[in-house]
């Protein structure tokens, strides 16, 4: 049996936070849920227990405590909130995997607000120099977590990071959630991944996929 991992989801009340939590109950994970909306948090907790009766999950009232207790921290918050969060959890994130899921989109979804030579993933790593930042889940729509098979293919979930062991651990989480993990490369690949989502979102709006879409590399 694989050892239990304690995973803090900061922003568990959001669309992504909730979707990731629901996926992670499939693995041997203990989930620590943090968000500001208590009603949504209790709703999520009940939903998790409904999915799996012996779900090991708990609402934690403080993002620092949740991160302190965790082995893996998922920052499921908007890009604009990441710098403040990083400041708060810096001391307790040393050595831990911190998953960056954000896409630094402009309000009209037409471009990324980051400069070309960097990415949200790399910026989070700069803010948390002693953590092991991994870009993951950012290329997957929250609406696709329930339907990870599209047109007969399992959707890919791309990961980027500088620590090989961390990449493998996150790949495992992605498999538990139901996507096909694809390691893209080191953390500079976050730039490409964040741009892929920009493209996917615009295609989604233009062609009306209703979020039931995602990236898939076809290969033999």
């Amino acid at each position, binding site marked *: *049996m694989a*050892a*239990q991992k304690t995973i803090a989801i900061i922003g568990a009340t959001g669309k992504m936070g909730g979707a990731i939590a629901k996926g992670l109950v499939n693995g041997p994970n203990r989930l620590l849920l943090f968000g500001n909306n208590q009603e949504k948090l209790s709703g999520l907790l009940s939903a998790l227990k409904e999915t799996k009766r012996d779900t090991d999950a708990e609402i934690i009232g403080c993002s*620092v*405590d949740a991160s*302190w*207790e965790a*082995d893996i921290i998922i920052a499921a918050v908007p890009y604009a909130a990441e710098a403040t969060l990083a400041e708060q959890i*810096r*001391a*307790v994130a*040393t*050595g*831990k995997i911190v998953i960056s899921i954000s896409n630094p989109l402009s309000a009209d979804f037409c471009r990324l607000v980051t400069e070309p030579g960097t990415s949200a993933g790399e910026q989070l790593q700069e803010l948390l*120099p*002693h953590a092991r930042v991994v870009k993951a889940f950012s290329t997957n729509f929250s609406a696709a977590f329930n339907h990870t098979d599209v047109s007969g293919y399992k959707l890919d979930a791309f990961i980027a990071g500088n620590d090989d062991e961390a990449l493998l651990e996150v790949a495992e989480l992605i498999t538990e959630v139901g996507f096909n993990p694809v390691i893209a490369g080191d953390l500079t690949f976050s730039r490409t991944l964040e741009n892929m989502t920009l493209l996917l979102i615009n295609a989604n709006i233009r062609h009306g996929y209703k979020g039931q879409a995602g990236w898939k590399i076809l290969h033999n």
Partner: protein
Amino acid sequence: MKIAEALQLFLWLIPDALYMFELLLQKINEKVPITPEESAVCKTFFIPKKLRKKQYLLQEGDVCKYVAFVEKGMLRSYTVDDKGTEHIMQFAFEGWWLSDQFSFLTAEPSVYNIDALEDCELLLLTKPAEEEMLVRVPKLERYFRLLLQNSLIAIQRRLVSSLSHTAEEKYRQLLASCPGIAQRVPQHMMASYLGITPETLSRLRNPKNRKV
């Protein structure tokens, strides 16, 4: 504002980070004085980890990835025999280190379990982090050498004690080396550590049966 209130407010304002390493730095400085700069470097290598009572840090069959320093709470390491009986190898209180050195050094699966007997605040060090820290702060080589020396002595004593001491001598030695243990550790676990039955231990603990 009363002084007590002011003090409370002040304590509340101190971020956790400041006291997270208090005991570790105190213990290091007792053996090897290090500068504030070196302390700051040290802090970047330890994984701060809270563990709840009964949760595992290591399970039999997994590789022991960390050595753990206990800032708060208490850990134990133990094996489970074929009959399902637990044999406690070691307790670790505040200020102590615990790991399965064999598994930590060889990356072979461990035959031990390590779990929390109380809610814990730990500082964990991986092998690569330890190596890099020793390069950055070479003074700590001395600290870790002294630690290993002490743990070797403790193991030799425990071996002699388990081979040749009476139950009563073993119990007295445990109380002497871990004052306060009887208040924090359930009797059956102390018995398991000493390799005696809980009944024998309770007889020893009864003042009426004590040889003076």
